[in-house]
């Protein structure tokens, strides 16, 4: 290892409409090292890597990328691959029904004139598999391999393209311990062979195990780059850098009328996902009291959304075990409709994907979940519907020219309010808010918080799932921390700090 950088990203700025995702980020990776990139959700790690790999081509960002001593202007992923940069994403990009050797060379097939040279392909594939220490038949279908082995196939694919810089985005999130150990041994091998690695990870223990250097990003800015071999890195130091922002004073106060009346109690709640062939939730216990906001904190992919959905009628078809008691009564919901009827509402995390019907108007979206209330004998009463929609438009201050406006044309904050209005109209007792303020501006956030306070003061209970620590601390009465499908801790908000939560969230 020496000090010459293989990669230097200088002053990278990338803006999305309304958000500065990267704000003058600098990122320097030395040749032949394992460099970890850490930061909270939304800190800008993925965006930075997309700039590097050409997903956002030159011109969509400002700043310079210098790779291997040359200024690079990537027009697309192919350009970055050509100079030797490969990214392996969390969701693997393999074709499950093709064989291992086909997958390794897909997109850069070895040719013999017009034809694919299969003999050479299989020979080279076997070589690559040996390099990544994967002992499988190259003719096996990728579908038949476990996730850990599939990941090694991805790495073999990267090596077959003569990779100089290998980027792994959360490579261990779906792996068991054995596979993680194997992967790390392999990364050590690659380092010895001169391949540089950038590892994006949430698991600080892994950083301690394997990193040569660490760069911390926060809110789209580089906070620091630390050298692991100079003893600069410890979990506490990293957490401090990751969360070390001031909590802005953007959380409206509310009158606390704490009640001890438990409305929802969930016991030994587990769920098995047949499509992922593993338990996604393991033995969770929690309660929700009347008139409180319960925060569910944790990192993305920790199982918070799955926990909420498994309670809300289980639309994804997990195999759920456990007890759910609502108002002192044992219940189990087989469809969201049953949960809605029982007084549970779920405002989804991704309003565009599964929250709203974007091609329909504000009015139709607001009334969708409770059309029965404004219908007589199956016929919708138009006047009643218009009145309901206008009432919510006014009380939630939805900024739209009319309730006949198509939802796709509204801003994120107003879309979120429409989504919220839809669920308030079912008049729930328990409102589950999954990332209620993601991707909306500060003003709209404040309005949503004010609405939340008003609702709990009226006696509603809110479960708030959020990846933003300040939001969790600013809004919750109690906090549960979820990590890898399990609640790892419960904290009254007075005892919770960003550091304690981050410790619990990076366990497992």
């Amino acid at each position, binding site marked *: 290892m020496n000090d010459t950088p293989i990669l230097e990203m200088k002053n990278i700025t990338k803006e999305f409409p309304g958000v500065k995702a990267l704000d003058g980020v600098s990122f320097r990776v030395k040749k032949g090292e394992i460099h970890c990139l850490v930061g909270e959700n939304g800190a800008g790690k993925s965006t930075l890597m997309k700039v590097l790999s050409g997903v956002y081509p030159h011109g969509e960002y400002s700043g310079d990328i210098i790779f291997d001593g040359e200024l690079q202007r990537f027009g697309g992923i192919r350009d970055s691959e050509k100079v030797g940069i490969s990214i392996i994403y969390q969701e693997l990009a393999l074709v499950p029904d093709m064989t291992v050797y086909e997958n390794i060379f897909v997109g850069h097939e070895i040719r013999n004139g017009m034809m694919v040279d299969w003999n050479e392909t299989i020979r080279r594939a076997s070589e690559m598999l040996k390099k990544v220490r994967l002992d499988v038949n190259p003719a096996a279908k990728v579908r038949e391999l476990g996730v850990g082995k599939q990941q090694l196939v991805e790495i073999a694919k990267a090596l077959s393209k003569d990779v100089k810089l290998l980027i792994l985005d959360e490579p261990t999130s779906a792996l068991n311990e054995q596979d993680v150990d194997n992967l790390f041994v392999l990364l050590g091998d690659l380092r010895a062979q001169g391949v540089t690695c950038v590892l994006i990870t949430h698991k600080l223990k892994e950083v301690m195990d394997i990193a040569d250097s660490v760069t911390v990003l926060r809110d789209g800015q580089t906070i620091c780059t630390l050298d692991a071999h100079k003893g600069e890195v410890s979990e506490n130091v990293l957490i401090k850098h990751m969360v070390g922002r001031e909590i802005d004073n953007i959380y409206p106060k509310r009158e606390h009328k704490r009640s001890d009346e438990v409305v929802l109690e969930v016991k030994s709640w587990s769920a098995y996902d047949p499509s992922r062939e593993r338990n996604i939730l393991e033995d969770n216990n929690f309660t929700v009291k009347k008139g409180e906001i319960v925060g569910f904190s944790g990192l993305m992919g920790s199982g918070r959304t799955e926990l909420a959905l498994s309670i809300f009628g289980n*639309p994804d078809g997990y195999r759920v075990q456990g007890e759910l008691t609502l108002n002192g009564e044992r219940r189990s919901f087989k469809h*969201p409709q049953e949960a809605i009827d029982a007084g549970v509402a779920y405002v989804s995390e991704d309003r565009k994907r*599964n929250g*709203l019907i974007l091609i*329909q108007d504000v009015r139709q979206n607001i009334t969708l*979940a409770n*059309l029965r209330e404004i219908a007589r004998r199956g*016929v919708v009463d138009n006047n009643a519907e*218009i009145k309901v929609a206008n009432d919510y438009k006014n009380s939630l201050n939805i900024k739209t020219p009319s309730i006949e406006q198509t939802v796709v044309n509204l801003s994120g904050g107003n879309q979120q309010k429409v989504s919220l209005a839809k669920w308030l109209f079912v008049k729930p007792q328990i409102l589950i808010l999954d990332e209620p303020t993601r991707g909306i501006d500060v003003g709209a956030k404040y309005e949503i918080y004010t609405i939340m306070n008003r609702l709990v003061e009226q006696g509603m209970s809110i479960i708030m799932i959020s990846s933003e620590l300040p939001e969790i601390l600013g809004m919750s009465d109690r906090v549960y921390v979820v990590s890898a499908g399990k609640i790892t801790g419960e904290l009254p908000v007075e005892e919770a700090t960003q550091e304690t939560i981050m410790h619990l969230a990076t366990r497992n």
Partner: protein
Amino acid sequence: MSFFKDLQRVLRQNIREYGMFIALFVIWAIFAILTDGIFISSRNISNLLNQTGYIAVLGVGMTLVIVIRHIDLSVGFLAGFLGAVAAIAMVFWGWPVLIVIPFVLILGLLLGFIPGFLVAQMGIPAFVATLAGWLIYRGAILVVTEETGTIVIPNDIFNAIGNGYIPDIPGLTFMPEMHKLTLLLGIVAIVIYIVGEINGRRKKQDYNFEVLPMNIFVLKLVFVSAIVGGMTWVLAGYNGLSWTVVVMLIVVGLYHFVTTKTVLGRHIYAVGGNPEAAELSGVNVKNITYVVFGQMGMLSALSGILFASRLQSATTTAGTLFELDAIAAAFVGGVSAAGGVGKVTGALIGAIVMASLTSGMNLMGIGISYQYMVRGAVLAAAVIFDVATRTRK
């Protein structure tokens, strides 16, 4: 000047809605010129609409299937098969017509649940599930007509559905060549339309919604009234309204009501617009899938009845290519393959457009080979128009 500017703006904003009416108008005008007016003669228009009936009802059902992002290829031969079943029930089993028709409709509904089950419960792509149905019903027609070949239906009531006209008001002697009841119904329809539009506009103004400028609004009323009036006048000049047209209008009216006014209709369009969001909003996507395929089966039965009645017989080839005509009618009528968008009234217009092309080109003596090409081109143009106007938003 501002009138034309307004008109231009309104047309541009509502191009998707008005587009196919304009297209139909243009097609009729062109054929009227090219055939020296024969195309818009009472007799030809009446025949054209009667030929549209069995495709239009399929197109209406197909619109809902496409709205929820599926397809049904089996409807053509299912219609043919159920038409044969109706013929057998009347001719060989001696069942009365009033039993046969509901029996066949219910049979169609039940058979429609089969692709519903395969798609909703088993997760099989609708294209494959209904292609299997296409093959099976094609075989089934051959099986039931194997011994007899074409089954002639000697029942006057049944045959009147496809060939008969509504009776006239007895005792009126003025205008002997015109069908008075048809004229009366036409006038009633125009009055109901105008009153409804005016009420709707007033209500919208009460809620401060955007309404058409007054002059454009009047123009629209005049335009639609003229079309309805003109159609009535033309039909009244030749036997009046046929039972086929009555059935077609009832089906379209009923479906228009269900899709625009009821909870069920809302749920269907919600599933089409975003199935995941609909499911999370408490809509049972599986049940909706059953309902939509079930009604498709029932309308296939109706289509089979209309066709058998028109031919006064059940044949071994009944239903051939109906499914593709129905799909074409739905797409020409503005349904979007991306789901969630499309009106049943559009499918009616789409079916009339396609039938008009056939009729007009027949009158002009254009060969069948070129007819297929022209209809294909119109279908492609309709979908290109749909995609182009959708992305511009």
